[in-house]
């Protein structure tokens, strides 16, 4: 039974990674066949340096991901704190239901409705081409916000509201009380929200596709390429990104385990 269950887990993992392995194989191979390996294995990696379209798109993707994650984390954390403080339960429920819309709706519907809004607003101020940097950024902030709010909210519910009141009674300004008392206790939720926002933004294709205009991000470039044929340096770049994320995740996991061990050891002492 144990062997069978392990085998099952291994098969699912193989299924998840089969296309990834194909991609990595192509990135090292000069010929277009998976079976025949020819040529200098790092050719496509070296060629990447000269592919300005690809590198510009990568830069655009990173700029949008960083900016949208930072802005949505700040806005979303403030929103979560504010929604918790709403005294009317009905208003709070209404705001939360609206927050759920972008998570529940299909990406294509969110993308199209935002595109129609941007075109409408663009016409209002007399622009012919309203789609570009600011519209992708706005769209990304919009679909990131619910994830930030829903990561911060549970942490806020766990914090004791009396702590903030105590800080105020002890002479803190509301501002100081927030930064000294509330913020530290919800920081884990904020970090989770930020990471989620960043990765969602990095990987988004559908919503960017409808809102980006000429400000092309990496998924858009890749989409246009897969219409014809994918150049091997795309595989090389994807492999590099894969390795970078893989390393970061392993590092994060090791650090987390270590800090947990430390806490356990302290608890024992």
């Amino acid at each position: 039974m144990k062997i069978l269950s392990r085998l099952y887990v291994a098969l699912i993992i193989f299924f998840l990674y089969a296309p990834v392995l194909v991609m990595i194989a192509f990135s090292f191979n000069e010929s277009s066949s998976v079976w025949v390996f020819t040529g200098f294995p790092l050719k496509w990696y070296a060629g990447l340096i000269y592919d300005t379209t690809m590198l510009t798109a990568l830069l655009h993707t990173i700029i949008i991901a960083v900016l949208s994650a930072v802005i949505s984390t700040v806005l979303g954390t403030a929103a979560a704190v504010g929604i918790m403080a709403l005294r009317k339960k009905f208003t709070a429920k209404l705001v939360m239901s609206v927050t759920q819309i972008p998570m529940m709706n299909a990406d294509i519907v969110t993308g199209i409705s935002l595109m129609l809004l941007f075109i409408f607003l663009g016409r209002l101020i007399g622009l012919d081409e309203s789609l570009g940097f600011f519209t992708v950024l706005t769209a990304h902030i919009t679909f990131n916000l619910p994830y930030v709010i829903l990561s911060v909210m549970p942490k806020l519910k766990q914090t004791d509201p009396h702590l903030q009141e105590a800080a105020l009674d002890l002479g803190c300004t509301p501002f100081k009380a927030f930064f000294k008392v509330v913020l530290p206790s919800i920081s884990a939720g904020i970090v989770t929200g930020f990471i989620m926002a960043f990765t969602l933004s990095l990987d988004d294709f559908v919503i960017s596709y409808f809102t980006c205009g000429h400000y092309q991000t990496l998924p858009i470039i890749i989409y246009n390429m897969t219409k014809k044929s994918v150049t091997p340096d795309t595989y090389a770049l994807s492999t590099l990104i894969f390795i970078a994320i893989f390393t970061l995740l392993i590092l994060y996991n090791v650090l987390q385990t270590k800090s947990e061990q430390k806490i356990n050891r302290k608890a024992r002492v």
Partner: protein
Amino acid sequence: MKKHSFGNRLIASPYIVWSVIFIIVPLIIMIYYALTDTNGIFSIENIASLGKYKKAFGISILYAAVATVITLILAYPMAYFMTKLKISSQRMLMLIVMLPMWMNFLIRTYSWISILANTGIINTFLGKLGIGPIKLMYTPGAVILGMVYDFIPYMILPIYSVMSKLDKSLLEASEDLGCNAFAKFKRVILPLTRPGIISGITMVFVPSVSTFYISQKLGGNKDMLVGDAIEYLFNLGPEYYNVASSISLVLMILILVCLFVMNRFSDEDEGGVII
């Protein structure tokens, strides 16, 4: 005493303004487009003409439903077996399951072509055994495979997170009370993990039913899905925005109805898990 809570309430206002402008207004504009003709005059012609896309809706729902069921059947044992491992291996496995999600899904989907094509990995292998080639690409099966592949992590993760919090003493109690393995699964494990199943199903079904990339690449445009129809019409230009919007509106309503029905199922348990 209430001084700070007034300040706290105020800081939600930027978000509330944001969500009105960028969540509610866009949907209103989309509904406006759906219910008007190209001159902006109210008309239900778009909605009435949707009969043309009946097949697209039917195929989308069918493919997404089949993909969701397969995903559930594959993911449930996976989540169950994961909880049987050491805590450190569980966390590692979680990372391994999530890692492909950080890779561009277009590239991952595109890679399947080199596996499934007539000259691809599977058929080359079969050829060496003297079989085939079997037509795998540009079939409904390939599209469903793409959906299962792309969205299976969204099924594994919520089921796993509910299952890992399962109270072990309940399982022991059911054994003590004479349940066999099947009864234990049906009467204890399954009901307790239902919130995870429900959120997994929604997280797989919604992107599957609205996808437009997977079908284009793996289905070869033979069967047009709803997502393909919307994307195609929007690319034709502004004069097609109205029809495209009405298809989107119907798709949105369809998804909302599905979610509502699903939530009805999960209401019997205490709060379901989103994400």
